[in-house]
């Protein structure tokens, strides 16, 4: 205790010695009106766009509307203590967020304030929340996969490091679940994760934190949260802040993954701010720059070339649709910005196909360049077979007895594939698990397994292979590919297992 007491005393001594310091010229203005989290300020004639302001009550503001005589500012915090006549000071700074490894495992607000009760966040650096995205010359093509651990995604809609892949679907279709599973699957890997919660219930964010902790995935994860009870400016800033945290990892040559959950609420928050700032409303009352709002955010996802460290930032934005309508304003905007989308459907979800990925409407524009060779080998035919199955399935409703053998075989294969792609939550697959299961089904080893026992077969097969063919499995995990020897071992293992099933 004495050491700590001395520490405190010495810090106090230093601070008291430095008391006073310099007096500087500060730009000031006076609050003329305040309400709904927006303050109109007279003066501040030399303030810059996006500059941070400080109010006497201690809250800060963001200068967003610069007019001839007045400045419209969004108050980042409670507007209760802000009164007419208050002196507002310009800081000369733009909004910044603390960045660095100290954030891993933490839950912070959009300005870096800790929300998890684990004490102050001791970071080394700060980064501007709004920056221009890396330019063409600094980037390289996306060529390394993000292993989500979800068979239907890694197999059919591969996501590459540096890509922007949208997760879109109605409420309660498992959008967040995909994101969380992806984070959990990075345990022990080299991909750092940032989960940005925008306008969500605090209970949901707490639940996600608990889930991640339970699966040991908080160690490589930062949660940036602006909850439903936070003012709109905070919700507006949260994704940019999360992005800045990710950019720090990217600049350090590392790979990071950021999830924006969700950008629909982000657009709502921005719409609220814009309307209160008296900017003219456009379609669906969104302001004219709502496209730029998301495009400048998602452009910051990148894969840097080796000259710039070779780091990457992968973005998984989430959009919630209403009754499956993807033609809404915000969904179409974000679809057009991203490099593909994972489309989730309530019908599939309710039919028990979870994750409820619609294989036909989901695409990844980066494609197989971002797939490991092992997955590419087994999954190449999967998408085609599933598409054929989907086309045939509608015929099959009228009775499968009259169909020819080839068609029937295709239907059988499709049913088993669909069954294989079902995956419980919080159970992402490792690469070898995924590859061996897919190998078995694509090469017909499961054709004589009853459809309702496919998942049981898969589970037990993987368990068997992991014990009896551990070397082959390890080889797949390490080389991310399989050679002939490994393939033979796989075949042997599967045949041996089938004899016992």
């Amino acid at each position, binding site marked *: 205790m004495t050491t700590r007491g001395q520490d405190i005393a010495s810090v*106090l001594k230093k601070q008291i010695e430095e008391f006073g310091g310099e007096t500087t010229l*500060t730009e000031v203005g006076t609050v003329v009106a305040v309400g709904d989290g927006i303050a109109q300020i007279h003066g501040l004639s030399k303030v810059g766009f996006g500059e941070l302001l400080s109010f006497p009550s201690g809250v800060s503001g963001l200068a967003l509307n610069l007019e001839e005589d007045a400045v419209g500012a969004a108050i980042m915090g409670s507007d209760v203590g802000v009164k007419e006549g208050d002196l507002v000071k310009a800081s000369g700074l733009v909004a910044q967020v603390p960045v660095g490894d100290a954030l891993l495992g933490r839950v912070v607000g959009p300005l870096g304030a800790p929300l998890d009760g684990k004490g102050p966040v001791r970071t080394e650096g700060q980064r501007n929340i709004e920056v221009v995205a890396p330019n063409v010359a600094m980037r390289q093509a996306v060529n390394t996969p993000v292993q989500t651990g979800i068979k239907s995604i890694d197999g059919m809609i591969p996501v590459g490091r540096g890509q922007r892949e949208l997760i879109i679907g109605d409420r309660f279709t498992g959008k967040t679940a995909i994101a969380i599973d992806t984070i959990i699957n990075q345990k022990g890997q080299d991909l750092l994760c940032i989960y940005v919660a925008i306008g969500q219930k605090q209970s949901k964010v707490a639940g996600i934190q608990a889930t991640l902790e339970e699966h040991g995935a908080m160690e490589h994860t930062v949660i940036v949260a602006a909850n439903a009870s936070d003012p709109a400016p905070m919700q507006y800033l949260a994704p940019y802040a999360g992005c800045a945290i990710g950019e720090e990892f990217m600049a350090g040559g590392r790979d990071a993954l950021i999830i924006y959950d969700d950008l629909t609420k982000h657009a709502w928050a921005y719409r609220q701010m814009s309307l209160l700032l008296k900017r003219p409303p456009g379609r669906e009352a969104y302001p004219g720059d709502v496209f730029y709002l998301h495009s400048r955010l998602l452009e910051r996802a990148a894969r840097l070339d080796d000259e710039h460290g070779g780091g990457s930032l992968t973005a998984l934005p989430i959009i919630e649709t209403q009754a499956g309508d993807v033609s809404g304003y915000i969904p179409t905007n974000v679809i057009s910005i991203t490099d593909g989308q994972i489309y989730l459907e309530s019908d599939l979800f309710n039919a028990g196909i979870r994750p409820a990925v619609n294989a036909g409407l989901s695409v990844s524009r980066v494609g197989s360049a971002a797939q490991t060779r092992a997955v590419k080998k087994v999954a190449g035919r999967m998408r085609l077979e599933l598409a054929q199955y989907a086309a045939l399935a509608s015929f099959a409703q009228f009775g499968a007895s009259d169909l020819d053998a080839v068609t029937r075989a295709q239907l059988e294969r499709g049913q088993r594939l669909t069954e294989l792609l079902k995956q419980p939550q919080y159970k992402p697959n490792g690469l070898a698990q995924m590859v061996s299961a897919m190998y078995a089904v694509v090469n017909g080893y499961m054709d004589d397994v009853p459809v309702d026992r496919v998942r049981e077969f898969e589970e037990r097969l993987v368990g068997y292979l992991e014990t009896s063919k551990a070397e082959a499995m390890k080889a797949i995990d390490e080389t991310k590919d399989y050679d002939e020897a490994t393939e033979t071992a796989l075949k042997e293992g599967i045949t041996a297992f089938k004899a016992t099933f």
Partner: protein
Amino acid sequence: MAKAPTARRYAQALFALADEKNASEAWLDELREVKMALDDPTVALYLTTPRVPAEEKLAVVTRLCEGRDPMIRNLLGLLASRQGTPLLGAVVAEYESLLNVRLGRVQAEVTTAAPISAEQQQRLRDSLGASLQKTVVLDPREDPEIIGGLVVRVGDQIIDGSVRSKLVALKQRLANESLA
């Protein structure tokens, strides 16, 4: 805040007129006096209420401005006929700032905890003038709440050397700074 731009237009027009007649400084004094008269709540109410016909207001304003420059009288008349007399305060302020810009003069609002002597004022005026490259007109105020030191406000800029703000800053630093 549509008030400020309107007042500015009036002030610019008046200032241009004053310039032509080389009477800008004299008019400022006259404007101030008129404004003082109009600041009286009864007069202000009388001039804004729609129950008084415009001609009557015009007559009152003309009488009020007796002996003043005809242009000042005209300005008042114009404002009165447009329900614009509440703008006068802003017009005078804008006029004054235009005049200050013309004369290379700035107004500095100096707040201290205790009254400052003429010699201190002179030193302050000199040093401020040197740093701003302008003639400084001091507008001293007293506010014991700042505890000590002084706060100078020039337009939208403030130099805060008060003990109060330093204490606030110290308090914040002690609360925020980690003990690592």
